[in-house]
């Protein structure tokens, strides 16, 4: 029941954000659409508890800022490689151990790797190994374990 309400609320807020219109008619339509989506999707009840929500949101914001800095730094690095007349790439696929049990954790780690320019997950193995294609495989392989440890700590602070 609570899970349905929560999903309805989330869908309602997204609908209001997209339409950017706070008239009463629009509020009602959004609520009905949110309710319909919640009934169709049948949410599972093991999501975030409300008591932990503020902490999780704070950690999510911290993670978003860290990710943005990572994206900008790697974006500049890749731009430099692309614009270099010699095109100094050393492409290759390296294996990075995700070290997380839940599928959501592995998926979000893979998302964080892929969203930064210069690295992208090609395949995920059975045991949560992320096979990552890098533009500069030798440089990326050095920092990969360290970066994944940091990423894992941040993701776990959000979801556990």
């Amino acid at each position, binding site marked *: 029941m609570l899970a349905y309400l929560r999903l309805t609320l989330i869908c309602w807020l997204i609908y209001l954000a997209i339409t950017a219109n706070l008239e009463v008619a629009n509020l009602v339509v959004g609520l009905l659409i949110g309710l319909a989506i919640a009934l169709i999707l049948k949410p599972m009840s093991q999501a975030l508890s409300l008591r932990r929500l503020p902490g999780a949101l704070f950690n999510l914001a911290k993670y978003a800022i860290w990710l943005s800095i990572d*994206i900008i730094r790697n974006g500049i690095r890749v731009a430099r490689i692309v614009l270099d007349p010699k095109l100094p790439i050393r492409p290759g696929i390296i294996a990075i151990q995700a070290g997380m049990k839940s599928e959501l954790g592995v998926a979000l780690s893979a998302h964080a790797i892929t969203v930064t*320019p210069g690295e992208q997950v090609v*395949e995920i193995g059975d045991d949560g190994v992320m096979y990552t294609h890098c533009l500069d495989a030798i440089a990326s392989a050095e920092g990969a374990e360290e970066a994944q440890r940091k990423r894992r700590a941040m993701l776990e602070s959000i979801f556990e």
Partner: protein
Amino acid sequence: MESLGYLIATLAILVGTFFSVVGIIGLVRLPDVYSRMHATGKVSTFGVVLLTVAAVFVTPLAWSKALVLIALLILVGPVVSHAISSASYRLGIPMKQAVRDDLAGKRVKAPSPPIQPARVERAE
């Protein structure tokens, strides 16, 4: 206040356009499909997001709508490039100038029914 908005919008347009152009240059210059996905991924993160930010300041686009758009772009962009590169690897498209390949020889989970490796013309 209005001129500050225009300043931010101008900066965002300049940087976003720069990274989009770099992304397309990378698409032309890089050797194979995997490397090229890195370059095009940058267009979708830097290019489109920064142009959306600029649009918030100079067009009637509501900031809340732009926020949802940016969140969806950031969430979905990597999924697309992962899907394309994963499909390429399963089809057996070779990497060029590769220095290492940890995935070589590993059994990739075959989707059902298993797909046959396609014959890929090497454009040399």
